């Protein structure tokens, strides 16, 4: 990792300690507030990769990954928010006529943006029509936002529209609670077309390394907590760290985390780097967060200790950003050089 990247990571870390660490439980319970979105914007994180003319920072991909990793290690919800703004939102808007009008407002935090793209995840029907011509979109991420970027009723275009949360589902989302996931009723009369659905799909497919960076942050956040806990918690008269199964498993997971980090930040890019990192981090994040929770015992099961959120979020990111069989098949096709993994 070069010095610039190190400096970037330190900057994001300092920001996170100051603005996220002490409120991470509040973020889980009450959601990300506008004040934090403003601060993320002021730091240039909200539009990390977007063009400067729209208020973005035009950072390189690895600096962007560093931002995602560090933010996610404190609050995966915040990491995912920054990812959605950059890799999905700004990417979709960038080359459209709407960019000039809306992107500066979105990237400055003046207009907040929610996302409904479940349709491009395998086999998920994410919308239904309502009698009054509005569109009911299921499982929209960040449903409390001002505006939404969703796939339209025909399933062909991505539209930009206003909307309101439909009556509460009486259910907390599994993960990304800082953003929330809920059904949203969209006002189609005022909606504007942003781009083709296929372009959004491409943006998601091209952001494998970024998703892996979020997962790396989740892995780091969970393991660091478990390692610290194992140093201070005693059971049967010994520190947890002195029990070989705990010490060995946490340290091996930490090595895997470090190898993943080196791989993500190496500059000599393998053309399959994003996919490799994504599939590796997806599996590792589940193992690491499970072990981190287990190390905490009963306390790990309570939200106050801040470790169960990583367990939930690893699964939520895996479900919403990682596309299961689709991404596994993409890797197979790359490795075999031909269509594979499909009869």
């Amino acid at each position, binding site marked *: 990792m070069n010095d610039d990247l190190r400096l970037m990571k330190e900057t994001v870390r300092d920001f996170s300690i100051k603005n996220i660490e002490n409120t991470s439980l509040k973020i889980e*319970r009450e959601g990300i507030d506008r004040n934090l979105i403003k601060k993320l914007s002021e730091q240039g994180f909200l539009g990390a990769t977007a063009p400067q003319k729209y208020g973005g920072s035009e950072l390189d991909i690895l600096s962007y990954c560093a931002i995602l990793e560090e933010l996610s290690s404190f609050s995966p919800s915040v990491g995912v928010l920054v990812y959605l703004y950059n890799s999905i939102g700004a990417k979709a808007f960038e080359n459209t006529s709407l960019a000039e009008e809306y992107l500066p407002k979105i990237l400055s935090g003046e207009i907040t943006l929610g996302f409904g793209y*479940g349709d491009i*995840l*395998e*086999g*998920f029907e*994410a919308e239904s029509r309502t009698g009054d011509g509005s569109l009911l979109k*299921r*499982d929209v991420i960040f449903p409390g936002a001002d505006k939404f970027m969703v796939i339209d009723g025909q399933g062909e275009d991505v539209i930009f529209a206003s909307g309101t949360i439909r009556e509460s*589902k*009486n*259910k*907390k*989302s*599994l993960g990304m609670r800082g953003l929330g*996931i809920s059904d949203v009723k969209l006002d189609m009369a005022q909606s504007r077309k942003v781009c083709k659905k296929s372009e959004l799909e491409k943006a998601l497919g091209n952001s494998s390394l970024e998703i892996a960076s979020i997962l790396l942050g989740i892995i780091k956040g969970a393991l660091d907590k478990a390692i610290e806990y194992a140093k201070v*918690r*005693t*059971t*049967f*008269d010994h520190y947890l760290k002195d*029990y070989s*199964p*705990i010490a060995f498993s946490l340290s091996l997971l930490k090595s895997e985390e470090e190898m993943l980090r080196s791989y993500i930040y190496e500059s000599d890019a393998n053309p399959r780097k994003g996919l490799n990192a994504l599939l590796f981090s997806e599996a590792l994040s*589940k193992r690491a967060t*499970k072990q981190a*929770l*287990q190390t905490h*015992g*009963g306390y*790990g*099961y*309570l*939200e*106050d200790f801040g470790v*169960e959120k990583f*367990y*939930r979020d690893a*699964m*939520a990111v*895996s*479900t*919403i950003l990682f596309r*299961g*069989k689709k991404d*596994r098949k993409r890797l197979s096709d790359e490795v075999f050089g031909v269509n594979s*993994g499909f*009869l």
Partner: protein
Amino acid sequence: MDFELSDELKDFKKMVREFALSEFTSEVARKHDFEESYPDDLRKKSLEKGIIDFASPWKTMVAIEELCRVDAGLGISVTVPYFGAEVIMLFGNDMQKEKYLSQVNQGKKIMGLAVTEPGGGSDVAANKTEAVKSGDKYILNGSKMFITNGQIADFFVMLARTSKAEGEKKHRGMSTFIVESKFKGFSSSKLEGKLGVRATNTAELILNNVEVPSENLIGEEGKGFYYIMTFFNISRVFVAAQAIGVAQGALDRTLEYLKNNAPKGEMQNEYVQFTISDMATRIEAARLLMYKAASYLFQFKPNPTITSMAKGYASEAAVFASEKAMELTGMYGLSGDIERYFRDAKIMEIWEGTSEVEKLIIARMLEKESDSSE
């Protein structure tokens, strides 16, 4: 060797499943999960229906599995009002059984087991709550953590230290008492924000000079640790049943999705087929281990090795199956009921002795058994 349940148990199992399917609807399960509220109405209904029959431990085990298969939070909630009853049944006197247990069996009272302490976890012998004899009563001081039914129980079977811990023999000098929640100096505060099994009530208990009559001492003074370990040897079979219920329910719902809601051809995909086969195999293996542990236990020949294997393996199977269910059902699972199985499953690897503790027990028993076979 017969791997089938008796016809009576099969009928009972069917009755419990029908009860769970009609009462534990998505709406009800989501409500109690969201609100973290205890379903007292379901407790009463399940009692009226004869879902819980303490005269038959086999029925209890089957009921726990079938109820948790539909929803673990609700299933545990309706079967846990009797938690700790075996301690009184096995070691209590007639007065205690009559005064306390009969009320629980009639559904008039709820009980709980108060063993775990803050910072203590599975290390029961490290408990610090003290019980000091004073005339015809004991004065209890200390605190208990993660206590199921902590806020709703009328009384608890509680472990407390009646003499100082001495070096390596820390587990000596502990005794069990029946402590009523209305005793002066007793207080509880609900623990909120649990990852799963959120319909169950969990609390921290504080004991501030609580006066407990001597007649509430269970069995002999100083034998509490052994009583509790005996209890765990029983209850771990029931935790295995909870875990198998969760695992089986996750598989049920995955199959239902694959058949009715998944994109066409999903069920024919070999990756999917391998995954569900693996889930089903682990569930079946865990169930056989549980039956074996139960068979020993219910014939009064408990086998702690098999019991720990059953509890440890079943809870890992629950975590595995619920994780795979999420993987196979994706957004459908995330926005529906399957994600609850994923959150509920993890506690199985923690409570009633963590997976690590089960492994230590197995290893120690293996060492002991190999000594005696020489």
